[in-house]
């Protein structure tokens, strides 16, 4: 991966669990002990939907999937857009693909400076 593309960063906690996104403390209440870049892994589609009634600044239609990564035996789930024009089914394998702007900042109600707008879409393999 090139240096200017940010990782798809998940946090690892002392009990071995991993969450995406990371949180100040993990499910067991303990602070994280490390990070994992999920963009180094592929994932399996747990479920998906195509949303047609999308909010301001969001592509329409918007196909979304909840996927599950297997990080050395530890399951980690994430949600994200499916890459443009692509279709997925439950059980499909996908890879994370970086996207500079997932949604137009400022078009919706959320303060643009309060969060990131880039991230990873899922592309079927």
């Amino acid at each position: 991966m090139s240096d200017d593309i940010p990782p798809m960063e998940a946090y690892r906690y002392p009990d071995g669990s991993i969450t995406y996104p990371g949180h100040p403390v993990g499910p067991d209440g303990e602070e994280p002990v490390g990070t994992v870049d999920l963009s180094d892994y592929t994932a399996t589609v747990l479920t998906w939907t195509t949303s047609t009634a999308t909010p301001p600044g969001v592509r329409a239609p918007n196909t979304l999937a909840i996927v599950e990564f297997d990080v050395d035996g530890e399951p980690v789930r994430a949600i994200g857009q499916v890459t443009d024009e692509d279709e997925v089914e439950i059980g499909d394998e996908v890879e994370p693909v970086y996207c500079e702007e997932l949604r137009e900042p400022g078009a919706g109600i959320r303060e643009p400076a309060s969060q990131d707008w880039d991230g990873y879409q899922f592309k079927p393999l």
Partner: protein
Amino acid sequence: MDRVAIIGASMTQFGKRDAWIRELLAEAGQSALADAGISPDEVEHLYVSNMASGEFEGQTGVPNALAHDLAAMPAYTARIDQTSSSGGAGVYAAWQSVASGASDMTMLVGGEKMTHRTTAEATDVIASLTHPVEYKHGVTLPSFAGLTARLYLDTYDAPRESLGKVAVKNHKNGLDNPHAQFRKEVDLDTVLDSPIVADPLRLYDFCPITDGSAALVFCPESVAREYTDDYVVISGIGGATDTHVVHERADPTTMGGVVNSSEIAYEMADLEPEDIDVAELHDMFTILEFLQSEDLGFFEKGEGWKAVEEGVTDRDGELPINTSGGLKSKGHPLGASGVAQVYEIYKQLIGDAGERQVDADVGLACNVGGFGNCVITTIMESR
């Protein structure tokens, strides 16, 4: 112990209204005062359930505005926001105020004004409750419903038609609710042929965007007897949260907040799921009626859809669910919905539900915020 009673209730017409938030709240508030037979100066605590009057309308400070409009000063007042479960959280706050002895007469008014916004704008206001990693992908509450419905149908081998039958049932019930936004029957083909909103869910799997308000009056049971013979008691109430990030839940087809809040409520009431005679569930999306009916313990996990297929949850079934028409046909003015659920159970338990009346001594309301992020379960009994 002196139990907490509800002695009066009201709800406005739900739907597209010309009135703004202050007027909607005052309309329901005045009607509830009249229904309970109390004067405004008797109100000691006044709670307002509302998610987003600032975002929708640019009107904040609604509890104080309502206190003035009802001439209820100097009542203590506060706004209760728990997103879509603001109404249930208001019931919790009102119950707490009376149970603690802080107030001997509490009014709760829930309301929301939404229809002046486009569907896209209203969807975005509601979606603003999501985590940044969800929001940036354009995730909305309807898209959570589509994701979960697909997984539910796949996991439990349930037919798509079963979801449609929830909409058919609740629209049929709403026909007899004079306050409902939609008072028209829909058949299964209409539901299944309606436009896709979040595949596999279609337009008729979703509740509408709605303006409206509802109100309740609470007091200790010992005080209630001075006013009326027609009151109900809150015998159990529980609130619980689940993860903010929805995909982090171990089983996406289980709503932990429903499981946990109902366990608290059942224990407080010393009742079991099979003791419930009638229930109002948060059918913001048809799939939610299945998830809640299972997570409340009415049916086994993965079996809720069969109950709808077999007519168990029809108005004349063994366990009528959403006799009011539910959010599906009645409408979903966010802050009002949890209050209106309790309004329906109150009416059923005092025998004043008109054409919708069922035989019930114990009723339950389950109000869901976010996609199960916050949940309030309330159990009520005839006196």
